[in-house]
């Protein structure tokens, strides 16, 4: 399988030059117009608390019963996925696990998070297992206390490491969708999540160590819903991303999110595929193991390069902003949240069709998760429509996602800039490097989509 992202049978046609130029023109035009018409004082944080929804609704959605039902269901899905991966057929597309992990989970939960807020807090099977363990311990009259206190010294680096491990499996492993490999990965990650919660406590590990919880948590800050003081609030989208994020490792985490998606786009291009093919030809006659090892290292290098490129460009832009804004302290924590909408846009643009097309296969797979010829729900004959969206629609969605992500990122960075820099003129000057960075990321993301 050369298909870079874990799984999938149809790849997008490259976006035509016309769409690229229109997208680029709109990005540049709105950037400059926005920069001069935006607000003069920070407004996002003030709006992040939104307005409370009716308390009955809050009580229902946040109720213990809903938690237990959703938690039990998600633990069941984790068990089913693990069992299918370890004991089901080894044919990747006939096994429930690969499509569930790489498409339904890894693309579906981000979508739900962006639309509805931090759904992972009630959907995480690991959190549900830990909650159940604590309940059982306390019910048995014993105290459930973390072994170590979370000092915050590690910041979000554990979560960044976990996310990198997952994207490395997805994008660098020679057969990321091979069910047995995936089964081992699920088991290892379950250990990582549960052991971390046992050692450091459920809340700290969910916030700083469980890579998926952290990723979905960032994306959920885009959402028009949030939980505040035990109540659900409705708010303007993106307002949750105001302010600075001073937790260490946040930049690396966001860079892994952005870098991995852009490397996925690049690794589908003929440039990269020919490189891999050349490497294979070079090693012709060597054992399969040698070839796999070499391609894995090349892909890991590519992935690391894209993450490093995001880091380097961000740090350079921030350094320039510090200089222009005459700020003595580091502004790295101040402008990291504007990258979140861009990461979300990259995800949407790169995985829109994968989700719509490959996602349909779950309908047949749920009837025969182990690939043993069952038909539990009578859906085994469902024929996925591989031409469900026209290429034009895909191109529009891709360009639109990147433009919206760009505008949102720019507005969030502006909101921070007027808080950080003194004086209008300084604030204006100091915003230019961030503007350049956002334009670079957006046009870079769009350019990757034009690669055939």
């Amino acid at each position: 399988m050369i298909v870079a992202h874990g799984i999938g049978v149809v790849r997008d046609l490259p976006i035509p030059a016309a769409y690229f130029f229109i997208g680029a023109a709109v990005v540049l035009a709105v950037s400059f117009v926005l920069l001069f018409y935006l607000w003069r004082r920070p407004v996002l944080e003030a709006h992040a608390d939104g307005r409370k929804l009716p308390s009955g609704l809050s009580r229902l959605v946040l109720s213990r019963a809903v938690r237990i039902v959703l938690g039990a269901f998600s633990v069941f899905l984790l068990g089913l996925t693990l069992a299918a991966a370890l004991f089901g057929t080894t044919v990747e597309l006939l096994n429930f696990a690969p499509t569930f992990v790489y498409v339904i989970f890894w693309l579906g939960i981000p979508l739900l998070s962006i639309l509805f807020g931090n759904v992972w807090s009630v959907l995480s099977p690991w959190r549900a297992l830990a909650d159940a363990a604590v309940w059982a311990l306390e019910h048995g009259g014993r105290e459930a206390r973390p072994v170590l206190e979370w000092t915050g010294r590690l910041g979000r680096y554990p979560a960044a490491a976990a996310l990198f491990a997952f994207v490395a499996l997805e994008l660098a492993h020679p057969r990321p969708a091979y069910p047995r490999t995936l089964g081992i990965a699920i088991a290892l990650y379950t250990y990582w999540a549960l052991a971390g919660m046992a050692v450091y406590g459920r809340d700290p590990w969910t916030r700083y160590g469980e890579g998926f919880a952290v990723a979905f948590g960032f994306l959920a800050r885009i959402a028009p819903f949030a939980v505040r003081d035990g109540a659900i609030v409705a708010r303007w989208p993106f307002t949750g991303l105001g302010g600075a994020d001073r937790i260490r490792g946040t930049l690396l985490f966001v860079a892994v999110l952005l870098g991995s998606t852009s490397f996925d786009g690049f690794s589908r291009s003929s440039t990269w595929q020919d490189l891999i093919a050349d490497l294979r030809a070079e090693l012709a006659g060597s054992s399969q193991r040698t070839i796999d090892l070499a391609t894995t290292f090349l892909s890991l290098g590519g992935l690391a390069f894209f993450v490093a490129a995001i880091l380097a460009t961000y740090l350079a832009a921030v350094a320039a902003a510090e200089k222009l804004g005459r700020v003595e302290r580091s502004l790295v924590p101040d402008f990291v949240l504007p990258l979140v909408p861009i990461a979300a846009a990259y995800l949407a643009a790169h995985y829109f069709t994968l989700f719509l097309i490959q996602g349909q296969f779950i309908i047949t797979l749920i009837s025969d998760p182990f690939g043993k010829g069952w038909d539990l729900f009578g859906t085994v004959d469902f024929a996925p429509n591989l031409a469900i969206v026209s290429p034009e629609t895909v191109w529009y969605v891709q360009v639109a996602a990147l433009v919206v992500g760009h505008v949102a990122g720019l507005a969030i960075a502006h909101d921070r800039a007027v808080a950080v820099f003194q004086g209008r003129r300084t604030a204006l000057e100091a915003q230019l490097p961030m503007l350049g960075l956002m334009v670079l990321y957006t046009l870079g993301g769009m350019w990757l989509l034009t690669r055939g």
Partner: protein
Amino acid sequence: MSAVLATLRRVRNDRRFAVLVAMLALAASGFVFSSCGGDDGDSAAPATETTTTSEPTATETTTTTETPPPPPPGPTEIRIVVVDGAPKGGIVREKVEKGDRVVLIVRSDVTDHVHLHGYDVMRDVAPGKPARLPFRATIPGRFEVELEDRGVPIADITVNA
């Protein structure tokens, strides 16, 4: 830098001018759209044509998308030669139009299965026994052709909309 900023500040002081800039930008994007909107597929990244033979179809593909071209007399043949378990001359890249009838012909000096993803056509191949994979290009997108057992990609078929 300061000259640019001075201009930018003037812009800020004059809302009408900023609106004008926005209008100009929109007009520019409209111009770009109208000047290259018609040839969507062709204006994409330059295709790396390989030397592998592809029998040209009888129809010249200059037709617009509104009127479907008359059905070609025979299927488009895409030939792939596998030497030492790798595609001769690199990964074969071919483009076909949606609705075309296509047949992949794979000659190989190794025994394996040839798998066309998406359309999900799979045929055995062996030395002296070329594989023929016929399909009708109904799904637009890019599709990989792979030596299934080795996991080696040998071709990349683009079906234009």
